[in-house]
């Protein structure tokens, strides 16, 4: 899952990025409000961690601008402002969650996963398509109760498809999901990952929509 981390504190940003990466997130990090707004409007991330006291543009303003632009991306506000009034205002402006510093990075990750899940209308942590089960927290995929080994990118690709099950995701959308900034994307990378996934999963879990992209069947169709 690709998320945007907006934090102007270098040490904190660096530490959070490192830990969230360890927990399986693709983390893009920006350090000021203007950059955050630009990236979030571009819509390449599944969720964002947003600090409020930002240079150039306050986090609250970024949030308001984002919601005005109709962006529904889940936003977790991470802040040192712990007054109830601040929290209420943050939630009213459009934050989906409000976390006070300092935060346990594992909890932050769990909250992000929950936000992403809910933003896709899924109440359970585990995603199930037929006999394939994906556990985003444990980063484990099982087929018929047997764990399958997937690479990082294969996991992220399957996760993205399963989260959006029933919907067709274009190659570009999938690339945005599994590659962060500065990561070289080869032209046929998605095809290669899909190929590997199909081999490991067996059966027609991932369907190709020619000229458009890929999809996994919707939960209603075969789960």
């Amino acid at each position, binding site marked *: 899952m690709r998320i945007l981390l907006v934090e102007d504190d270098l*040490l904190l940003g660096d530490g959070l990025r490192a830990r969230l990466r360890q927990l399986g997130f693709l983390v893009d990090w920006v350090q000021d409000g203007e950059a955050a707004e630009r990236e979030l409007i571009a819509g390449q991330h599944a969720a964002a961690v947003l600090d409020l006291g930002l240079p150039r543009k306050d986090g609250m303003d970024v949030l308001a601008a984002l919601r005005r632009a109709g962006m529904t991306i889940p936003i977790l506000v991470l802040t040192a402002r712990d007054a109830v009034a601040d929290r209420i205002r943050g939630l009213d402006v459009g934050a989906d969650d409000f976390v006070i510093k300092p935060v346990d990075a594992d909890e932050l990750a769990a909250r992000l996963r929950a936000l992403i899940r809910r933003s896709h209308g899924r109440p359970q942590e585990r995603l199930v398509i037929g006999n394939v089960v994906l556990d985003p927290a444990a980063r484990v995929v099982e087929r018929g109760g047997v764990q399958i080994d997937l690479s990082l990118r294969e996991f992220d690709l399957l996760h993205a498809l399963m989260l959006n099950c029933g919907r067709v995701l274009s190659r570009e959308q999938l690339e945005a999901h599994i590659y962060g900034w500065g990561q070289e994307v080869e032209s046929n990378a998605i095809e290669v990952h899909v190929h590997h996934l199909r081999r490991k999963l067996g059966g027609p879990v991932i369907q190709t929509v020619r000229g458009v992209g890929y999809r996994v069947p919707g939960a209603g169709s075969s789960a």
Partner: protein
Amino acid sequence: MTWIFPRSLRGRLLLSVWGLTTAVWFAAAMLTWFDARHELDELLDAHLAQAAALLVVQQARETDEDDRAIDAPSLHRYAPKVAFQVFQDGQLIQRSANAPSKPMIDREARPHPAFVTVAIEGIPWRVFAAKGMRGAMEVYVGERLDSRESILWAILRSTMWPMTIALPLLVAAIWWAITSAISPLRNLGQALARRQPDVLEPVVVPGAPSEMTPALEALNGLLTRIEALMANERRFTADAAHELRTPIAAIRAQAEAALGAADPGERQHALKATLQGCDRAARLVAQLLTLSRIESGTAMSMEVINLAVVAKSVVAELAPLALRREQSIGVDAGADCAVRGDQTLMSVLVRNLVDNAIRYSPRGASINISLASGPSGTTLLVDDSGPGMAETDIQRLGERFFRGAGRAEDGSGLGWSIVQRIAALHHATLQVTRSGSLGGTSVAIAFPACIDSPGRQGT
């Protein structure tokens, strides 16, 4: 003395007013006594003399008559206390019943006429002796002194008894008047005693006398100042606690990253960052303490100091930091830049400015500290060739903990608050602009001219 003089205002007032009233009362009684006695003596002496004169005149008319009654009748209950004798040629010719047969006064010893106090049969008498017109006649009129005393006592009794009754009433009235007059004081004391320590609203004492107004105003002024101080303190504590969250969050995130790191390089990086986070938190705490000390306004000595010396020593201290960052740093100052201020605070101010310039300028930047002294005062300029600050950031500089954009350093945002506070304490004006000479940020602090000539220690 304390055990004689009570500590309470009411006690003092009561004691002194009661004491004075009683003293005045006794003085009045004494005065009445002496005055009445004097008047009485005068009056009764005049009566004695008058009586003697009457006897002399009467005797002069009656000399030729033979039937002389030796004893005159006593006609009044006071009569036994009054006596007279009439002698003709040494012969007692007339006397009152209670008069002795011998002259009441030894006629050789006393010239006539005269008032004499003598003891007759052990009782003191007041006697007037007069000579008749024909020399050989002597008249003595006497009166017992104790009769005078009893008249005097009667006069005193009649004047003193209303006063004697009035005195306790007066004492009670004084007690009531004083107690009610000082009741606002007691109300104030009770109001203050009942107060919770965090209630700092002005004290209102209904019916407080005008004498209490200055004290009440001073008290309320003090309460207002304490309230402002406490609000400031609360805000500061909240700000500080709030601002420590971010470094702690960073330390935590880095430590978690170090724990979860798969390869040694990543762990190394995270651990180093953890230490850096600790250093930053420590620096923040130190700055918070500095700021809190400045804000609490603890002893600040105002003396004439040479800012050039201060600037040079601070730059010497910070030069290694700049050199590590391959920055060039220099001081451009005349010999004498006298400023009135606190030596320690001034060092803190210059250090914060220079430290900021070093930390927020990139590698290889130039930093210049210059001092200009003129008749209007001394101006300290810190210029750097760094990226400079956006106009909006310059406006937000005053806010505590605000950090400018794109700062690659671990500033706390408190340095500027410290600079502002110290400048304000020294009545100096602060200006941040884009540096004309170096292109980065330029901070100018203008100190007012100090009246004392440089080199002389101020007070």
